[in-house]
C-alpha cells in the first residue's frame, strides 16, 4: 500500500492555519454556503472561516460534499 505523503499527513495533524469556524456554526451556515457556491458566487468571501473548517474537519467536509452533490444534482435536472 502506498504510504500517504508526509506533508499530507502533517497537514491533517496540524490543521488549517487560517481562522476557522467550529462545527456548530459550519452546520448553521452550510446550506447558504452551498447555494452560494452553486450560484458561482464567492462563498469564501461571504462566509469567512468555513472553507478552513472544511479543510480541517473531515466529517463536516463529507457533509458539505454530500449537500453540494444533492442540491447540485437537483439543479442540473
Amino acid at each position, binding site marked *: 500500500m502506498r504510504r500517504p505523503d*508526509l506533508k499530507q499527513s502533517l*497537514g491533517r*495533524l*496540524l490543521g488549517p492555519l487560517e481562522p*476557522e469556524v*467550529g462545527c456548530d456554526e459550519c452546520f*448553521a451556515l452550510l*446550506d*447558504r454556503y452551498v447555494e452560494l457556491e452553486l450560484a458561482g458566487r464567492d462563498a469564501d468571501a461571504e462566509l469567512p472561516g468555513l472553507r478552513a473548517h472544511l479543510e*480541517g474537519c473531515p466529517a463536516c467536509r463529507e457533509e458539505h460534499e454530500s449537500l453540494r452533490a444533492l442540491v447540485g444534482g437537483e439543479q442540473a435536472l
Partner: protein
Amino acid sequence: MDACTVLLEPVKARPNLSLVPSPSALDDDSRDWLRGLRSEGLEREETVERLHLLLLRAARFEVARRRPTLPHLRGNELDDIAHEAAGDALMSVLVRLDDFRGESRFTTWVYKFALLEAAVKLRKRAWQGREVPLEPETWGLFESGGAGPAREAFQGELIDAVRDGIAQLTLHQRQVLVALALNGVPIDVLAERLESTRGALYKTLHDARRALRAYLASRGFEPEDWI
C-alpha cells in the same frame, strides 16, 4: 486570544444571522413549506408527510454515497438506517423551524439535517464493535525518506519535534488529536465513546493543533516546512 479562537466561539456579531426572514424575502416554494408546517389539521399532516419523504430521499442519497464503505451491510439494513435518519431529521427540522432564516431555499436547509443524521449513523455503524485507538498506532505515516540525505535528516527532525509536541499536550488534547487526526477515528464515533459532542471535540482538536504548531515554531519550524 487569536482570530481562530474568536471564530470558534459562537458567532454573535453577525447581525443578519438572528433575523427572522420576512415572508417577502423567501422564495415561493420555501414560503409554501413554512405555511404548511405552521398550519393545523390535515394541511399540516400532509406537509409533514411530504417533508418526511423529502428527508428520506436525502437520507437514501447519503446512504448510497457511503455504501461502498459498508460492504457488510445488506440493502434492507441500509434502508432501515435511511428511514431512521429521516425520522430523526424530521424531528430536528420541526423543532428548529424557527431557526430557518431564509438564507437558502427551505429544501436545501432541511437536506442538511437528513444528510447529517444519515452520515453520523453510518459512521457509528462502520465503527460498531471496533476499538477506538487513542494512542499513536500509525507513526509509520510520518516516516521520512526518499528525498535525499539532507531532506531526510530535516524531515526526521521535524517528525521528532511533532512527537515531542504531541507528548506535551494535555492528556485529553493528545487523545483527541491522535484519534481524529492520526488514527482516522470519525469525530462522531469519538464523541459517542467520550460522551462528548462534535463541536466540543473539534474545539479541543483546534486547541491541540494550535499548541502543536506553536511548539513547532518554538523549535524553529515554519508552516512552510509542512505545507
